[in-house]
């Protein structure tokens, strides 16, 4: 009886641990396409307030998540983020430098990045913070852009292809 109780206790503990891990590490893998109807009005269309890619391809492993972002007639941006939150270099189009980091926080993926490029107004620095969350086959990204002391946040919804 005691052995049975111990075995049941161990099984329950292991089950609870794996359930907690599954909740802590949601899997964002897949190809995601922007759903304009479900996204903020200022996140889509001809003149978005914050740039959101029209499609995102995500591959996730236990240690990292790779993200390829593409938009119509725009150069793609890709990155392989370490899920331990360490800083990585983002593969950005020529003329743009970007670094970023990602971490899982309470079932959400938080990606922060810092982009810089030159312009006729001098060197420009933009900071982005993205909070990713999953709901079935829908990926929601809440993105904040901070630049020159001004911040704004928009939300985009992606459908799994």
């Amino acid at each position, binding site marked *: 009886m005691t052995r049975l109780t111990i075995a049941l206790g161990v099984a329950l503990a292991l089950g609870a641990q794996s359930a907690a891990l599954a909740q802590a590490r949601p899997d964002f893998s897949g190809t995601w396409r922007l759903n*304009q109807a479900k996204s903020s*009005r*200022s996140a*889509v*269309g*001809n*003149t*978005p*307030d*914050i*740039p959101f890619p029209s499609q995102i391809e995500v591959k996730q492993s236990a240690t990292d998540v790779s993200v390829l972002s593409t*938009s*119509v*007639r*725009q*150069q793609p*941006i890709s990155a392989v983020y370490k899920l331990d939150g360490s800083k990585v270099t983002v593969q*950005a*189009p020529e003329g*743009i430098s970007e670094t970023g980091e990602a971490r899982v926080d309470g079932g959400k993926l938080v990606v922060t990045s810092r*982009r810089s*490029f030159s*312009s*006729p*107004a*001098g060197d*420009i620095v*933009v900071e982005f913070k993205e909070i990713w969350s999953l709901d079935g086959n829908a990926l929601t990204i809440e993105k904040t*852009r901070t*630049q*020159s002391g*001004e911040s*704004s946040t928009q939300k985009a919804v992606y459908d799994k292809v």
Partner: protein
Amino acid sequence: MRGILAFATISLGLLLATASLQAHHSFSATYDGNKPITLRGTIVKMGWQNPHAHLYVDVKNADGKVVTWEVESAGPTTLMKQGLRKEDFVGAEVVIKGFLAKDGTPTVNASTFTLVESKKEFVNDEKTP
């Protein structure tokens, strides 16, 4: 004579249609969606032409040099519906949020611009992808 007149009319129509199409270009063809930019400056001139109103804004760089930027916005009708009046403009200080032109010139497509004194914000409300 009628034939020449008809030919001239059709040619003129095609010419105007082409010019209108060129003016009403898509965002992605001209602007870099990966290069968001925020500018603060003084409006020195306003162009009220369709399909896009254009602001010309003097912006001081970090080194003190003033550069005049061309800022493409929504059409005049859209801006006037949002409460903009011609007298609001020249000499006003403005904050522009938009995207840099792909060709590297001081040209920007404004998502929004805000008149600093009145805090009135105007949105480029043309949502055709």
